[in-house]
Every structure is written in C-alpha cells, then in structure tokens.
C-alpha cells in the first residue's frame, strides 16, 4: 500500500529520513536545504523519531559531529546545499576515508561568487572526488526513493560508505508534485536495523579512527578505498531490485529513455531530464530517432555500462549544469572517458546549461537535438563546448 500525496521534494526527503529513524542528525540551515532539516527537526520535537538532533554553528561542525556520531556507532544523517557543502569539504574526505555510512541529501545550488541561491550542480560536482557515493534524482519521487535506498547502500557491510542524494534546488526541493509514500513499516523493514561496525563507544574493545599513515602505507589504504567503491555498482543494483519489489518503481545505474534505436541522444541529469524526455517524444513523432540517458549513480561512475548504451548512437550531447572553467563540464569528461575505449562511438559535444537556476526549456533541448541531427548527417562539430541560452 502506498499513499499518494502532493508534497515538495524537501518534504518528501524529510519523510524518508523520518522513516529511517536515524540515531543522530547534526545540521546547519542553508537555502534551499533549510526547510528539509526544519521539517526533520519538527519530527524530532514531536517524538516521531528517536533522533538526537545536534544544532551546530556551521556545516564544518555538522559534518564533524556526524563523523563522531557515526564512528561512535550510530545511524547518522545531515543535509546541506552549496556553500554549506563547500564548508564541509575537508570533513567529507574524512567521512569517506574512515568508512562511515553517513547519509546526506544535497539540495543542489550554485556556488558564490556572485551570490546565487538557485539550483545548479556546481556544489555536488565539486565534491565528486571526496569518496562519497552520489545518487542523483529527477523528481521528488526519485529523491524520496533514492534516500530510502541510500541507507541500504551506504550501510551495506561490504561498503560502509557515505552517500549524497542530490536533488535540484527549488525546482525539486520547493515545487509540489504528486508522489507516493511507502508505509513506515515497509521502509523500516526494507532498510533494516543499523548494524554497528567498529564502534568507538564499544569501550571493551578500544579503537582509534583517523590515525597517521605515512608514505609506507597511505597509497595502500587509498587503493583499498577504490576497491570498496568498485563494489558499489553491484550493491546499487541489488538494492534497486529489492526496492522494485516493494514499490513497483524500477531504478538502475542510469535511466535509458528511448535509447535502444536512437541515433541522436542527450546525456542529462536531474530535473532537466524530465523536460528533455518530452522533447524526445515530440521529435520521435517527427521521425527523428532521439533518445536520452539520465545518469543516476555518478560516483562511482558506471563507465562500461554507459559506453555500451551510447556507443551505437551517431551523435550525443552531454549536458552539464555545472562548469569547469577552462575545462569541459564534469559529466562530459566522464562520458567521453567512458566512450574512449569503445571501437564504435558517437560524435560528442558538451553543453553547459541552467547555471544559477536559469530555466532549461524544451526549446533548448530541441535546438541541441537539431544540432546533433546535423552532426549525425556529417555536418561536423563546430564547437565542442557551448553554453545554452546565454544572451550574446
């Protein structure tokens, strides 16, 4: 039984966190994630969760408190956005380096300067090398579903890794959508009891976290960290399979939309993928073989699987809602790395769109598809990296 509701993305994710009933939450407010933690705080006040809520003085402190609580042996959550994530930086590496399964929704927002509170992916894309698993969500439903699955993934005994669940600031976090809630008991059973590993609070067996590791062993520990990350894909797929049995909703490493026989395609993440799917449908009616690939698991990146899904297309545009100044967009860099090893591969272009919350319109997707059609016909690539919708 699922309950149909009309809620914002923040409300949906706050409810997933309530259903997971964490032991500790340490959070500091930042737009647009504030309202998610505000809702969670009211669950704590109303006695709907058993969580110890720690109010801290910054995001650096919130992640530090989460690390302490997680090493102590608890199920731990927080949430953040933008500058907040940036301020957590050094602690993000410590959470993953210590193998602590902290669960953190990131309501994606642009980074300063200039100051902007609206949605883009600059925050989490910058954090891609912090050793956290990254799941990305198209809508409130997927953000809710990803949050529930994140507990099973991060807390898996073969992983014990922190997970970021990404959802677009305002577009998803603050818009009301129709979605379905799972029953509390069903989520509780699905996630299961938190299993304590190497708890600092086990005083009979003292332990140390974060020791000094010098050149004679550091690279071995990093090699081990990579190994643990390489197990993530399998766990994500297993958890998705169980989740489908529970919810009827199917998830993978990424979503392929009308891609099987496509000649031109977009690789596009999060909320803008919904807009682009509509355009795929309308182009199909016009006889253009358009398709779309929506990444869900960005760290670790499913290189082989993605290459297999894209190699037969003629031309592909990789859409980035974040930029690397003087470089290509972050998703483009991964997709082109994935395809380099394929004997067959499409022509590849990169579009930067939607920075600082600029709307991504159907016309932008259509324009890009028509450029791809031209490239597919042999028209050649004019510019590899271009900005969409920039006034010029």
């Amino acid at each position: 039984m699922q309950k149909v509701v009309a809620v914002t993305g923040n409300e949906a994710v706050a409810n997933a966190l309530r259903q997971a009933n964490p032991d500790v939450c340490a959070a500091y407010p930042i737009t647009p994630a504030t309202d998610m933690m505000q809702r969670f705080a009211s669950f704590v006040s109303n006695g709907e969760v058993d969580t110890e809520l720690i109010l801290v003085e910054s995001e650096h402190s919130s992640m530090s408190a989460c690390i302490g609580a997680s090493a102590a042996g608890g199920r731990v959550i927080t949430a953040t956005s933008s500058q907040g994530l940036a301020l957590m930086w050094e602690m993000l590496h410590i959470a993953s380096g210590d193998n602590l399964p902290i669960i953190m929704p990131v309501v994606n927002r642009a980074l300063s300067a200039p100051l902007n509170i609206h949605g883009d992916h600059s925050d989490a894309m910058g954090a891609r090398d912090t050793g956290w698993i990254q799941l990305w969500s198209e809508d409130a439903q997927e953000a809710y579903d990803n949050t529930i699955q994140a507990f099973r993934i991060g807390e898996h005994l073969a992983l014990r890794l922190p997970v970021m669940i990404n959802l677009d600031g305002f577009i998803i976090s603050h818009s009301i959508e129709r979605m379905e809630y799972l029953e509390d008991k069903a989520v509780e059973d699905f996630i299961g009891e938190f299993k304590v590993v190497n708890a600092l609070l086990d005083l009979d067996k003292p332990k140390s976290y974060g020791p000094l590791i010098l050149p004679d062993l550091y690279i071995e520990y990093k090699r081990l960290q990579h190994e643990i990350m390489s197990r993530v894909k399998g766990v994500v797929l297993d958890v998705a399979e169980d989740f489908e049995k529970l919810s009827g909703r199917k998830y993978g490493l990424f979503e392929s939309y009308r891609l099987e026989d496509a000649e031109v395609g977009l690789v596009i993440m999060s909320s803008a993928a919904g807009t682009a799917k509509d355009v795929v449908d309308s182009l199909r009616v016009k006889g253009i073989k358009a398709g779309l690939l929506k990444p869900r698991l960005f760290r670790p990146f499913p290189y082989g699987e993605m290459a297999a899904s894209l190699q037969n297309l003629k031309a592909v545009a990789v859409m980035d809602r974040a930029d690397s100044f003087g470089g290509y967009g972050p998703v483009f860099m991964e997709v082109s790395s994935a395809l380099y090893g394929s004997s067959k591969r499409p022509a590849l272009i990169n579009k930067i769109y939607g920075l600082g919350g600029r709307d991504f319109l159907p016309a932008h997707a259509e324009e890009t598809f028509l450029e791809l059609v031209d490239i597919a016909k042999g028209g050649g690539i004019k510019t590899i990296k271009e900005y969409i919708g920039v006034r010029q």
Partner: protein
Amino acid sequence: MKKWHELVPGAVILEGGSAVRFKTGSWRAFKPLWIKENCIQCLFCWMYCPDMSVTVQDGKMTGFDYDYCKGCGICALECPGKKGNKAIIMEEEGK
C-alpha cells in the same frame, strides 16, 4: 608490510594503546637533561610534558623516557629549578 587487501577499511586501529609501538624519540633535535641537584620535585615537568616522557617513581621525578620524548622543551621552559638555576636544560642531539 601489509598489502592493500590485508588492511582494515577506514584505517581503523582495532586495538587500544598501540601508540606505544610508535617511538617518537627519533624526531628529537634537542634533548632534555636533568640536573638533579637543582630539582625541587615540583613535578611541573611531568604535568606539562605532552608525551608522558617524564618518568616518575614513588612521586619523584627520575628522568626522561627518551623513546618517546620529542624534545619540545616545554619541561625545560616550565621548570622553576632552585634559586633561578634550572633543573632541566636542553642540549643539541649528537653533541
């Protein structure tokens, strides 16, 4: 030396007190020397030493544990000594 797949994930140290095997004395550039006749047994040195390297027996300062003393000089700085004469002085290693 352990291979990468033999390590504990998260670099967690699964035993207490293992720092005892990590002898930090080799870091020392200056070495504290105890001048017994100037010592008033105030134990300031024992209290201030960040590495628990001042040895004490039956409530009396007896010298230094050079396996762990890093030579920071805090004990020498804090030592009041007798009538202005320090009971701890720092001497360059290898002298």
